[in-house]
């Protein structure tokens, strides 16, 4: 599992790859802290379509999204496979993030920063 970050103006991008489980917590919190030093106003969680996410990984994502929202950051999600889009919908996470279902939507999200 890897978490890579990229700063693009006021946008912080997290590229998430692999099996996202409880082990995601440490690298994700570190990545968040690194991104936050650039004072972003928007965050993009970009999943590699082949990645898998279990309930412990979802808990880590909820913590990060919750923190971002408390800090007034807008969060977008891209790259999720249809199965995990369904999981996000089932647990209600889609109410708290902007779901970007194609590259055009991702491009618009990034340009609006």
């Amino acid at each position, binding site marked *: 599992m890897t978490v890579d970050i990229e700063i693009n103006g006021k946008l912080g991008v997290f590229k998430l790859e692999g099996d996202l489980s409880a082990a995601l917590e440490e690298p994700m919190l570190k990545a968040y802290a690194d991104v936050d030093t650039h004072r972003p106003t928007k965050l993009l969680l970009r999943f590699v379509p082949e990645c898998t996410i279990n309930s412990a990984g979802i*808990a880590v994502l*909820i913590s990060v999204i919750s923190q971002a929202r408390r800090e007034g950051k807008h969060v977008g999600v891209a790259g999720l496979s249809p199965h995990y889009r369904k999981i996000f919908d089932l647990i209600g996470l889609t109410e*708290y993030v902007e779901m970007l279902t194609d590259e055009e939507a991702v491009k618009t999200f990034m340009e609006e920063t």
Partner: protein
Amino acid sequence: MNNTSFEGQAGSEKEALHCVGQFAARCGFPEERVLDMRTAVEEAVLNAIEHGLLRERGSSFRIDCSFEKGVLEIHVSHRGARFTPPEVVPDIHAKMDGRDSPRGWGVYLIHQLSDEVVFEEMEGRNVVRMRFVLDKERYPNRSH
């Protein structure tokens, strides 16, 4: 072949899921339902590891799959203290605003992704019985 079993320890979850996924695909389930099954079984196995295997050294979990009359039944079991599943549906709003732990989605996902689920204790083992109906139009009553 209409049944298969897998016995594993913490760390062999992926192998177990691969085994379940292959069996479900051979039974004719579409990829979307196979992915549902894999997620539900993964959560049941993680539960077994968290509540059983990590507390009893050397213990294992077991997965038994059987397919009959259009229904795939999957049992995930382990020895350990009785597990009582939470009855409260997790509240994303409470989790997002910090009133509740962000964890606690496993049992909810198992319920949502399977056609029927029962948590029970059998002969000293905690068993999660999940049923998946292949063709709901052809076997409308099979999930009840």
